[in-house]
């Protein structure tokens, strides 16, 4: 399994709604804080691992190269990895294999996200994660998939929204103790969450993490080197990552199989046989409150459908049996996407060293798990970190010494042209090392000297391809077509010319029914740029009768309160003369279709 690898330093910026710093300046603040924390300089770094979210957030293509100088990559081996929201935790895995391979002794890991540049709303950058031909014409927004997954999760297990809301409360309260947090709030209540604006039922505003700017960095080192750099190395004991099918309407969203697969891989490597006993802290990915619970189940820390009652009973609190997101998570600290995932690994580093200050979980936790999730609800990334236990060789830990003073910048930065604003510095003297992340108000953002407004004037013409153009020709003729795979016996809808499970050519076209069952649905009150809709939309995943799949569409001729999971529906076709070979040749699905 290569050499053992430890985290020896960590740093982060404040997470803010809009940072004054450029993306590369944010990356530098975090990277320098991480190096300072273990008293290294850039000369000591052998290789640099970077992650950042979609280029469309920053509006900078080749974002890896753009950020490279701030990440410390000048003249060094360097690569950016990217697995959507899973990127932040994945970059720790990247750092692990970079060093475990034996090629490099010390690697710097940097995660940056600057979402505030995107206008009118960062959701615009997410729209192309939906299938260009079969889903985007329906006018989806990112909230839809979360709302659809959350509804499926709640409906299948009969969950109480109130129990789920306790996660948002816990995390925002925990974040009140985090010096880098954007949305810490010590007095928030479940009633506040349940009374917040409904965005896409069952998702309400306080169920969701905030758009943010920020950066986080770690320093990792090989066994033999790490012990010389710090008295308290935190070992990367296990790593795992896994991807499910991109056909998200073809799998049951109630349980994240890919997280479980990634967790199995990481636990096996770490020698963890009983995660519920051997994991002392969890930092599961929490962009929405229900996701933390969903992921705790994927991590096998709770039975399926049982994490919400653990949240209700306080098990997940900082002083509970399994502290979950003691940092405050994405819901409280903020969600600069790639950086937020790496923040979870940084939190384990501080917690396992006993350096988390007011956030410190009681006792002497020895092992934690961090997890992130992303792409089209399909990727799981998992890291197990620990300070003791099943270590193979390497000798005993050196006796704990008092932490060495950390070199920190005093006073306002030389570049600060005006008096410090409330968001400007005060550097934190204890971990986490929050440097940078100077908050710009909305007015400052609008009036910033030298700001440039721009649009990438690119339009696209997507070929629908062999399988989907056949599907669209079928819709034009009033038929729903699938492709049969005799390898696994499935009828694939949407159709594809190859089966992604068997990796063989599919065998032929099959006409399936234009009726189906509502697998999950949402009642969405906002557009993709977060404008309030007069008439709510009813997106739904429809399981198509006669197939093993289904697709995203809208419901009509039904009142929102009458829709339920499992409802029989039938396609309402546009008149023949209006059909053009589009997913919109089906106007919507309405209740009906027999049984």
């Amino acid at each position, binding site marked *: 399994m290569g050499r053992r690898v430890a985290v020896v330093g960590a740093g982060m910026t404040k997470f803010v709604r809009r940072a*004054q*710093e*450029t993306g*590369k*300046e944010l990356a*530098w603040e975090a990277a*320098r804080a991480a*190096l300072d924390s273990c008293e290294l*300089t*850039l*000369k000591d770094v052998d290789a640099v691992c970077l992650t950042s979210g979609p280029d*469309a957030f*920053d*509006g900078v293509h080749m974002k890896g190269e753009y950020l490279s*100088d*701030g990440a410390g990559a000048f*003249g060094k081996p360097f690569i950016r990895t990217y697995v959507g929201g899973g990127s932040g935790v994945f970059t720790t895995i990247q750092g692990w294999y970079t060093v475990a391979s034996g090629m490099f002794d010390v690697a710097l890991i940097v995660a940056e996200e600057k979402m505030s*540049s*995107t*206008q*009118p709303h960062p959701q*615009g*950058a997410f*729209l*192309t994660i939906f299938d*260009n031909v079969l889903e*985007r014409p329906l006018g989806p927004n990112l909230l839809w998939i979360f709302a659809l997954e959350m509804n499926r999760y709640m409906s299948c297990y009969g969950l109480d929204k109130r129990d789920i809301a306790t996660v948002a409360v816990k995390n925002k309260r925990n974040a009140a103790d985090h010096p880098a947090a954007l949305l810490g709030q010590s007095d928030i209540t479940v009633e506040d969450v349940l009374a917040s604006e409904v965005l896409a039922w069952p998702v309400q505003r306080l169920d969701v993490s905030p758009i943010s700017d920020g950066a986080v960095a770690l320093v990792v080192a090989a066994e033999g080197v790490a012990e010389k750099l710090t008295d308290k190395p935190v070992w990367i004991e296990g790593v795992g990552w896994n991807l499910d099918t991109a056909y998200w309407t073809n799998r049951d969203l109630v349980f994240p199989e890919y997280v479980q697969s990634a967790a199995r891989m990481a636990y096996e490597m770490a020698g963890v046989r009983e995660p519920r006993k051997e994991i002392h802290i969890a930092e599961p990915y929490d962009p929405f409150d229900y996701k933390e619970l969903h992921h705790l189940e994927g991590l096998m820390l709770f039975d399926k459908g049982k994490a919400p009652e653990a949240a209700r009973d306080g098990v997940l609190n900082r002083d509970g049996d399994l502290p979950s997101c003691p940092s405050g998570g994405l819901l409280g600290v903020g969600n600069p996407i790639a950086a937020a995932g790496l923040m979870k690994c940084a939190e384990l580093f501080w917690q396992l060293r006993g350096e988390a200050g007011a956030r410190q979980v009681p006792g002497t936790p020895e092992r934690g798990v961090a997890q992130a999730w992303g792409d089209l609800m399909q990727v799981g990334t998992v890291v197990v970190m620990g300070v003791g236990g099943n270590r193979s060789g390497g000798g005993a830990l050196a006796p704990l010494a008092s932490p060495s003073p950390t070199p920190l910048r005093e006073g306002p*930065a*030389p*570049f*600060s*042209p005006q008096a410090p604003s409330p968001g400007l510095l005060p550097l934190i003297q204890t971990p986490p090392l929050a440097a940078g992340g*100077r908050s*710009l108000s909305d007015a400052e*953002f609008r009036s*910033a*000297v*030298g*700001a*440039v*407004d*721009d*649009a*990438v004037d*690119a*339009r*696209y*013409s*997507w*070929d*629908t391809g*062999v399988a989907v*153009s056949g599907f*669209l*020709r079928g819709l034009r003729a009033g038929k729903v077509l699938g492709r049969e795979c005799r390898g696994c016996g499935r009828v694939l809808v949407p159709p594809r*010319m*190859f089966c992604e499970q068997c990796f063989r*050519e599919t065998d032929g076209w099959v006409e399936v029914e234009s009726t189906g069952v509502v697998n999950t649905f949402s009642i969405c009150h906002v557009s*993709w740029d977060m404008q309030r809709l007069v008439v709510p939309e009813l997106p739904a995943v429809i399981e198509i009768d006669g197939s093993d799949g289904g697709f995203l569409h809208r419901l009509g001729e039904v009142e929102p309160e009458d829709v339920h999971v499992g409802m029989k529906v039938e396609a309402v076709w546009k008149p023949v003369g209006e059909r053009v070979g*589009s997913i919109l040749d089906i106007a919507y699905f309405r209740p009906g279709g027999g049984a």
Partner: protein
Amino acid sequence: MLEKLTQPDDVIRWQGDIPVRHRYTPGVAGEVFLTALRDRGAILGSRCQACAFTYAPARLFCERCFAELSADVEVGPGGTLGSFTIGFVGVEGEPLDVPVTLGLVKLDGADTLLLHFVVDAGDEVLEIGERVEVVLRPPQERTGSILDIRGFRLTEGFAEA
């Protein structure tokens, strides 16, 4: 597995875009650089003493050693043409009525190159190594933009070898 298309009508396409615009703020160092350019017509750089290297425009940090920098040196307005090109077509491939000349210039006191237009060159033939100087817009026209510099124009002579 790939089916041969026999009817052009079989090709179904879907048109779309990515509906985002961007507002780029210049950052900590960029704000200082652009403010000085607008207000004083000064071109600020950052000197890293440890690396004996001067960046222009100014930067918050040295990418070579990670030291924090300030906008502590003024560079130019004279400089040396490091390279140039003359563009005859626009971004869509359309011919330009007036060709545009772009130069990479090492401003006096800087170790980095700055990209900008070469202006007022008339029919003169450019040569790498020629001396140039910054041409600023009048103070009342400056907005805090790299375009507060109109470009570089040729001056007499060549850089000393």
